[in-house]
């Protein structure tokens, strides 16, 4: 590190690598998140509260499968928790960063723009992992949820989780360019999130929803994220209650990847580093 004042002809020095700056961004994002205590408390407690409320209202089993209904929505709320921390919270925080000039300042530095996105994605991954761990703990403690029993199921759990976080993160970044100000950000992001929760089989068994609703939900990622997590966490005896009587893991991967690629392209094309004047 040089302390000398600059001279007109300076020796070339290498720019810091993308990897190093991505990790540096991740660390800054995580510090910023964990130091905002209310946001930490509310982020992690929202799905927990939902889980406990639903668990105390609803009992019984899903259809004739013998699988507890509580297990069903535990998997669903884990999926919707992932979407809440990544899509909703991330999207709103980027709108704020655009409005207060943070993004404009970053864009004026030699920070590679990909490092910013990588920092968002990696910090979301860490936050989502903590959230999922908390909900798995509650599911196990209160509702008799079991961790994946085979290596294959762990593998499913891992890739569904990673792909789900990546997709919802990219979607959150892409959607952050839609609200015109931070005042409308929460409304803009919560609407699709709330609607998707109710039509994607988070709280109610997907097969019990009207056909038309199922068809709409199948176009969006949350339905597939829920289904992928059920495949990893719930017993195969639930299969008769699944719409295709199978986990359709190929389709889960396909739809989530399509949304991931689509929102990545949208981010690259439409991401705005400064607020409109």
């Amino acid at each position, binding site marked *: *590190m*040089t*302390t000398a*004042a*600059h*001279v*007109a002809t*300076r020796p070339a*020095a*290498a*720019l*810091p690598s993308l990897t*190093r*700056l991505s990790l*540096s961004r991740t660390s*800054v994002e995580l*510090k*910023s998140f964990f*130091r*905002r205590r209310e946001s930490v408390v509310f982020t992690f407690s929202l799905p927990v509260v939902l889980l406990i409320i639903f668990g105390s209202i609803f009992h019984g089993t899903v259809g004739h499968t013998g699988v507890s209904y509580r297990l069903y929505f535990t998997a669903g709320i884990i999926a919707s928790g992932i979407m809440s921390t990544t899509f909703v919270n991330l999207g709103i925080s980027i709108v704020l*960063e655009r409005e*207060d*000039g*943070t993004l*404009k*300042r970053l*864009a*004026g*530095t*030699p*920070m*590679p723009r990909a490092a910013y996105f990588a920092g968002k994605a990696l910090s979301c991954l860490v936050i989502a992992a903590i959230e999922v761990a908390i909900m798995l703990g509650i599911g196990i403690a209160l509702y008799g949820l079991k961790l994946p029993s085979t290596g294959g199921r762990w593998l499913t759990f891992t890739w569904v989780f990673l792909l789900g976080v990546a997709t919802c993160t990219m979607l959150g970044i892409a959607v952050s360019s839609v609200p015109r100000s931070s005042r409308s950000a929460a409304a803009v992001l919560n609407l699709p999130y709330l609607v998707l929760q109710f039509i994607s089989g988070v709280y109610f068994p997907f097969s019990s929803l009207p056909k038309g609703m199922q068809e709409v939900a199948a176009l969006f990622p949350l339905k597939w994220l829920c289904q992928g997590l059920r495949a990893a966490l719930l017993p195969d005896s639930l299969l008769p209650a699944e719409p295709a009587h199978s986990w359709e893991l190929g389709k889960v991967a396909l739809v989530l990847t399509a949304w991931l690629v689509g929102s990545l392209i949208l981010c690259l094309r439409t991401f705005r580093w*400064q607020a409109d004047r």
Partner: protein
Amino acid sequence: MDTTASVRVRGLRKTYGDTVAVDGVDLDIRHGEVFALLGPNGAGKTTTVEILEGYRRRDGGEVTVLGTDPGEGGREWRSRIGIVLQSNADASELSVREMIGHFAGYYPRPRDPDEVIEAVGLTEKAGARLRQLSGGQRRRVDVALGIVGNPELLFLDEPTTGFDPEARRQFWHLISGLAQGGTTILLTTHYLDEAEALANRVGVIAAGRIRAVDTPAELGGRATAQATVSWLADGGRRSIHTDTPTRTVAELASRLGGEIPELTVTRPSLEDVYLAMIGHDRSGATGGPQGRSPVETGASQ
């Protein structure tokens, strides 16, 4: 001072819809100089600077900043410039030291973060979180983030807005130090005393065009403009605009037989010259300090 240009602009144009924001700006900023760009709000100042910084695309003209077209400047180019934007209001949870250290990591040859913190006078606040700082302290962080990369060219957009007089003096001292170290600085400001204190040259922009470029002392013919001799007589102030203030004062002294009550001799301030240029532009009429006739005027207060 190197004679080659850090910034070279020819025929710069930018329109927003039907509004012409920048209408053929030519500008040269030499290596190592402090250049102040003055102009009223809406004159095209910010648009011009943001094009030079690579934030906005131009609609026409040629622009070179440190030998590169800002529209195509990559990371290497960005690592050689520093930008202090008009305002940053982020409620960051990072401490001053963490934030400045983090930004230092973006650059290939950063300055020592602690040294930068000391230079902007925030050593005592180095451990404080950004959101806990006062407005003036936040502004110093903005400046620190602009200079931590050790830039060859520094853009300062209204850097001292909201500073108290003492903080402004300290800031001027900091900027003078950077300029002495060889940093080229493009400053925009509404404070003419700031331009006068810091700039080697000033440019006045109005209605999207550069109206004049000169040293603060010479701008608009200031140095050779008529002086105003003013004194107290019969309970009111009287003044004379003249090319020969020394003779006027001597004549007055002999007429009044000694001490002239409340005598002042002034030439137009930078602000007078600047306002005349802007006023000239708005009304379309000629005028300004050089257009006044050497008649005695009785002026009330």
